[in-house]
């Protein structure tokens, strides 16, 4: 039976920067929070489900729910999980190895992973051009109708 080592894989042992790990966790939490907020807004508009209802379901005060839905503080995974459960939602988690993410999934962006996009844009300066103080923040690669952000540092 053939044996394999880490050298045969796409992994390496270079340390991942703290900055990348920080951005990665922001991607995860923000994605979850966005879904929770969207679900609450839907229930509120459709069924008049309120923060009071959610507070009762989670046995906490309305002020706590209000603060959480305003996203004022960083939330632990347990808190996000409670909110999702309170909204009668299951959180589906998919851990996809970078090498299995197709270009098509990224809508034409030749990145290794969605989470690494931020790092690629920022730290490798790919897709970022500077003109004086203005910095364009735009995707790399072909896209029929790209969205683009330009940032003025003035």
């Amino acid at each position, binding site marked *: 039976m053939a044996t394999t080592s880490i050298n045969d894989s796409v992994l390496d042992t270079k340390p991942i920067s703290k900055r990348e790990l920080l*951005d990665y966790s922001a991607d995860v939490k923000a994605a979850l929070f966005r879904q929770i907020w969207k679900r609450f807004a839907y229930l509120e508009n459709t069924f008049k489900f309120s923060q009071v209802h959610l507070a009762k379901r989670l046995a906490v005060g309305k002020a706590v729910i209000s603060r959480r839905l305003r996203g004022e503080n960083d939330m632990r995974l347990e808190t996000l999980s409670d909110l999702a459960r309170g909204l009668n939602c299951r959180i589906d988690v998919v851990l996809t190895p970078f090498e299995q993410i197709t270009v098509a999934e990224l809508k034409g962006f030749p990145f290794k992973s969605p989470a690494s996009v931020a790092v690629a844009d920022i730290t490798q300066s790919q897709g970022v051009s500077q003109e004086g103080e203005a910095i364009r923040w735009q995707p790399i690669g072909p896209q029929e109708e790209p969205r683009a952000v330009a*940032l003025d540092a003035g």
Partner: protein
Amino acid sequence: MLWVDPPGKHPESVRQEALRYARELLNQFVLGKELIERHDLKWLDPHDDEVWELRTYLNKPQLRLFGWFPAPNHFVVIHCKRRDVLKTQAHWDNAIDRVIKKRWELMGDIPLFKGWAYGDYIN
């Protein structure tokens, strides 16, 4: 120097823990992912001014990125603010005026792109 991605110390003492959510938001935008109306991206009143804000959550200070759409799916950020310094209507008015003034410097009297609804600006 980029406000959301300073190479050194942030000019307004915003920690990386908060700035990362601004970067996440910008990446959501450029990757064509969903941005929820009024949650992530808000068309500020009065709509005729065509000024928008991108909003971060989950860390203090929350951040607001002010700008406008010169065309659908193209957003120009003119300046950024910590949410906690936008305390009065005058602060908000100043933030909006700054976008309008800078836009005028950049665009002159080129007609503004104007849409009717959120989906006209971002899709």
